[in-house]
């Protein structure tokens, strides 16, 4: 049996000492470990930029940069291939333009309603439901565009082809409504009430307060939400892949098939482009273009919301 004696003082000191050195070790090690975690996000960005730059560079060894940005033909699979990014950019911007035309009036209207008209109770119900709309996986929207929106549109526009720019454009627009509504609502809600009350005291109607007082005061946040939504629409992939088709063209025709930058990347990944072929490297050049587009928009949104914010 073990002896039930009191520990000697020297033993206690030794015990405490080892405990403290362990404590010291964790106190020192933990921040280092956490720093490593934080650095991973930086490494991710560096990884993205280097991957894109490196493989894009390889691509431009076989295709001239001038052809890439000026040629109006994108036929990578032809025996005599053309690599002009313009058709893919046109397709992307066409879908984005339709999306933003759908999303701005609806999203902004909803934002004004939620921030200026709705009661606290109603806002608490509607806002989460709108956010469900943002949480629906994009493949579901793609399915919806192809099997519901396109057939419905064809009854109105008979010469609409099965794959077209209109239907995915509208559906991408629906997808980004919550983004505009939610961010714009945040911006308008943060306009101080004293300003509203000042306008009411002068005899303004609710509409006039919303449009002429609150909206201008929140304008930077509202415009930033538009830009972010555009950036999201540009990067959207599955909806345009499923419902937009695979027909890169510079013609601006919403009724016929198009191809966006994202849809092209998916098309190549689905097929078996040989590793190391020009087609394989072309997805990086397209990805780089896409990355630059969205980066510019995101940075723009950041500066708009920061620079033109009115301080109260």
């Amino acid at each position, binding site marked *: 049996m073990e002896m039930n004696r009191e520990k000697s003082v020297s033993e206690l000191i030794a015990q405490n000492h080892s405990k403290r050195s362990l*404590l010291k070790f964790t*106190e020192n090690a*933990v*921040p280092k470990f*956490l720093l490593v*975690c*934080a*650095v*991973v*996000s930086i490494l*991710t*960005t560096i*990884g*993205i930029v280097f*991957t*894109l730059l490196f493989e894009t560079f390889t691509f431009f060894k076989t295709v001239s940069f001038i052809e890439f940005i000026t040629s109006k033909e994108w036929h990578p699979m032809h025996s005599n291939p053309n690599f002009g990014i313009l058709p893919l950019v046109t397709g992307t911007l066409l879908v984005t333009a339709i999306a933003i035309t759908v999303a701005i009036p*609806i*999203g902004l*209207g*909803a934002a004004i*309603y939620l921030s*200026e008209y*709705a009661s606290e109770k109603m806002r608490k119900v*509607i806002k989460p*439901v*709108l956010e469900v*709309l943002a*949480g*629906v*996986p*994009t*493949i*579901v*929207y*793609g*399915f*919806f565009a192809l*099997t*519901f929106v396109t057939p419905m549109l064809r009854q109105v526009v008979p010469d609409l082809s099965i794959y077209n720019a209109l239907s995915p454009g509208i559906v991408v627009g*629906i997808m980004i*409504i919550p983004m505009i509504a939610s961010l714009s609502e945040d911006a308008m809600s943060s306009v101080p009430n004293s300003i509203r009350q000042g306008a009411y005291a002068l005899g303004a109607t609710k*509409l*006039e307060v919303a449009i002429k007082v609150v909206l201008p005061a929140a304008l930077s946040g509202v415009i930033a939400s538009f830009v972010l939504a555009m950036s999201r629409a*540009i*990067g959207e*992939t*599955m909806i345009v*892949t*499923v419902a937009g088709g695979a027909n890169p063209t510079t013609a601006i025709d919403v009724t016929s098939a198009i191809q966006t930058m*994202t849809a092209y990347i*998916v098309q190549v*990944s*689905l097929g078996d482009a040989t590793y190391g072929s020009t087609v394989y490297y072309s*997805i990086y050049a397209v*990805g780089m273009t*896409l*990355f630059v587009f*969205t*980066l510019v*928009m995101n940075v723009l949104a950041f500066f708009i919301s920061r620079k033109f914010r009115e301080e109260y």
Partner: protein
Amino acid sequence: MEITKQSQMIRNIPTRLLKNKIFTLLFLLATLTGLLVLAILLFRIFSQGIGYINWDFLTSFASRRPSDAGIKAAIYGTIWMMGVTAPIAFTLGVGTALYLEEYASKNIFTKIIQMNISNLAGVPSIVFGLLGLTLFVRGLGLDRSVLAGGLTMALLILPIIVVASQEAIRAVPKELKEASFGMGATKWQTIRRVVLPVAIPGILTGNILALSRAIGETAPLIMIGALTYIAFVPENLMSQFTVMPIQIFNWTGRPQEEFQYVAAAGIIVLLGMLLIMNSVAVLIRNKFQKRY
């Protein structure tokens, strides 16, 4: 002298009021549009797909015949991938958030990390797919494995987790921390025993929401080569795999019309899974969120 023409103003009042009424209605309509579309979307998918949902659908592999097609491989693939993504994204995300909120000093380096994270959140998911393809599939030679897919997804949802965790950690009252320091606790003891227990409901909610985003993502996994036709369940981290959105994408693209209904059935399963995850997130938030 009059500053305003009173007669003119009085004449304008009815139009202004009418405008006010019309626009109130328009704003309400705009709000309801979103909800209406959501309702139509759900109704369509349920009426198309519900007839195809049965035990066989959940326990069969993909097939060329619509009536035999099932979603088993995709369900297992999704769960396997989450098994890789969740722990990695959680560790990295919460670690980053703790570093930024508790340890980082306010210098340029911290600012760069913070800006970098919000910037990463805006990078299109397909670009993460390109990164995964180059780094994990080719660079590390992981091939088209569950591991490569899970790692790619972990990087994709990292920014969402960091931002959500930061908010949760920031919401911990200062008094609690100061009391802990006052009792002689060290920094890490305070974080582990005071900050994290208080912040964990918020952190978990953010994590679950981020994971439900990952479950619905399709594009990056197409990039890294998750396959659309698989008739087996992953056996280890290096197995090939498919996930639910990719299976649905594959069915949507089939020419036979009946596959549309199969796709709708797959969507119901996917939405069901998302609904469960989101309900758990809301439950955690409501049940365990203490207010100080």
